């Protein structure tokens, strides 16, 4: 894909993200997933807009993204399915991660999906290396990592972007920032794009609720990266602010500072309909399709089983899965007579 994207396709990506996030939120409310699970409501534009500016493939030749749990839309654009999404979140045995970890995005490098992350910032380091590999091998591929705003405070974020900059890695770092008013006491930075200069990398700042704006900025960054110009930091402003700010602002039952920010899906819809690119009824159709796909996937995943407990064993090292010492399967003192009481 290059140049301007098809707005209806973009809208489809937004709708799928929204449907999955909404469904996940209700699973959370029902206690089916942990209370801390992030859903990604409000991150539709940045997720879909960024991912659709990249090249997808399923044979290890496309671009690679590292989404946060707020970016299911990007996961879907890169070929992740709602079924995988719910299996993963519900820790099903059928999940790509086999229930071992709670991340939203299972890794599948063939499709260009990198995840799940460890601690914040780590994926900036890892993506620096993934894109270093692209450069070393002369491949025409780029990488994109989604980051939070306070994630920029972490050591991993800093060392990762600095390394990518130094090595001119074809990497795009998307910082999902809140509104200026919502920035917390955790930083004095008021403009995350300004961080780029300190690393000697290019930057762009866009409205993170505007899918076309995000799409355009990432497209330009990807072109820079493909032409050997290295790393770009894209600041997406006005994302639903930090859960941390959220927490802060919620006390006293006050309103969250971003609760008034316009819905990115509605914004895209208004524009597509307003510019007569598609009819409202077509978009309704798209939305219905997304919801029913998500509903079916969720039902299926809910009906599937959790991993059997022995699955907790193995998978830590390559080769013989029995390598790590394990105490329930062998008598505690080999070669001795079994204890009389057992």
């Amino acid at each position, binding site marked *: 894909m290059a140049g301007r994207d098809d707005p209806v396709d973009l809208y489809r990506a937004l709708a799928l993200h929204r449907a999955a996030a909404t469904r996940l939120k209700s699973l959370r409310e029902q206690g089916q997933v942990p209370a801390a699970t992030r859903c990604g409501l409000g991150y539709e534009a940045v997720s879909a807009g960024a991912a659709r500016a990249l090249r997808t493939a399923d044979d290890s030749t496309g671009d690679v993204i590292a989404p946060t749990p707020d970016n299911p839309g990007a996961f879907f654009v890169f070929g992740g399915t709602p079924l995988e999404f719910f299996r993963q979140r519900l820790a099903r045995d059928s999940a790509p991660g086999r229930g071992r*970890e709670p991340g939203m995005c299972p890794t599948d490098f063939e499709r260009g999906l990198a995840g799940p992350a460890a601690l914040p*910032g780590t994926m900036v380091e890892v993506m620096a290396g993934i894109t270093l590999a692209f450069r070393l091998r002369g491949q025409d591929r780029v990488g994109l990592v989604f980051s939070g705003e306070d994630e920029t405070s972490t050591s991993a974020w800093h060392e990762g972007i600095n390394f990518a900059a130094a090595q001119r890695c074809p990497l795009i770092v998307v910082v999902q920032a809140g509104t200026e008013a919502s920035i917390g006491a955790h930083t004095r930075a008021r403009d995350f794009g300004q961080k780029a200069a300190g690393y000697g990398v290019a930057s762009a700042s866009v409205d993170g609720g505007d899918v076309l704006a995000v799409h355009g900025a990432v497209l330009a960054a990807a072109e820079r990266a493909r032409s050997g110009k290295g790393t770009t930091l894209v600041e997406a402003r006005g994302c639903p602010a930090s859960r941390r700010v959220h927490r802060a602002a919620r006390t006293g039952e006050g309103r969250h500072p971003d609760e008034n920010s316009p819905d990115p899906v509605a914004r895209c819809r208004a524009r597509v309909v307003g510019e007569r690119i598609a009819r409202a009824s077509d978009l309704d159709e798209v939305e219905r399709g997304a919801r029913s796909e998500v509903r079916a996937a969720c039902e299926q995943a809910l009906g599937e089983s959790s991993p059997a407990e022995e699955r*907790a064993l193995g998978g*830590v090292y390559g080769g013989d899965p029995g390598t790590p010492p394990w105490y329930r399967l062998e008598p505690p*003192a080999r070669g001795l007579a079994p*204890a009389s009481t*057992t």
Partner: protein
Amino acid sequence: MTSNSRPEHLGKTLRGKPVTLLEAISEALFEEMERDSSVFLMGEDIGVYGGAFKVTRGFLDHFGAERVIDTPISEAGFTGAAAGAAHMGLRPVVEMQFMDFISPAYDVITNYLATSRYRGSGSVPVVVRGPVGGGNRGGPFHSQNVEMAFFHTPGLKIVYPSTAYDAKGLMKAAIRDDDPVIFEEHKSLYRAPHLREVLPAEDYVVPLGKARRAREGGDATIVTYGAMVHASLEAAAVLEKDDGVEIEVLDLRTLLPLDDAAIAESVKKTGRLLVVHEDTRTGGIAGEIAMRVSEQAFEWLDAPILRVTAIDSPVPYAGGLEDYFLPRVSDIVTTCRYLTGY
């Protein structure tokens, strides 16, 4: 803007009401801050939000933003800053939102805080505290026990309480101690109803470095700490009832320095030793205990030293996997039977 009266929810002990382990920690922090104006808190979301587990709820209002400091996601940064503040005579208590997040601060803790006194930079009275442990479906990065990351570092102390009484007294001792202390709080003990206790209304400390005999018995010794104290007591009750054997349970309370005198004393009485820890197996604290017992009480051993621990893997997410991963009461019972029948 600090008020003088103690917030309602922090006055249970004063009113003769039982408190949870979490409330005991909150009371300890509150009372130490009242007692000593050099004590202050730093951590992520500990102020307005009151902390991820609400340990510091109400503190910001009472003590103000200069003594309850919300930080960026910079565990190394604020732990290093804590050391600096300590050099200037303050006594910082740092919260890791989950203790797993201490890993970015590994460098500054082991290389700076732990060595400061030795290198002539003076003592560093910093407490680094936070929630640890599994059983909460937190997956690999919200469930860890961190003692073995620091147990090998001379200059550090490590505390891990199992009761509300100890939690309060050990926290006070840790804050008053001049050395850096890692303070682990097991999430599943935080609000456990059966751990509610009426605590003394007067100020008390539980000295660091002293184990506690949680149960007396002559047939075998279990050395353990944290949540496993309760699993071990359960197992001991089963063994008394079903097998008529009396298990002594030693609760370490402080892991570093290790109370090897208490361990050796008990082993000399019972001749049999089982170490139980929730943390993974290889390189766990059981090893050091076995080594010290070998050095100090080899002649008194009537059976091999054994251990019950978690599996050597990351902490899995799915409930069934995690339950299988963690040590179980039945494992303790089986292994004790083996030992007492040896």
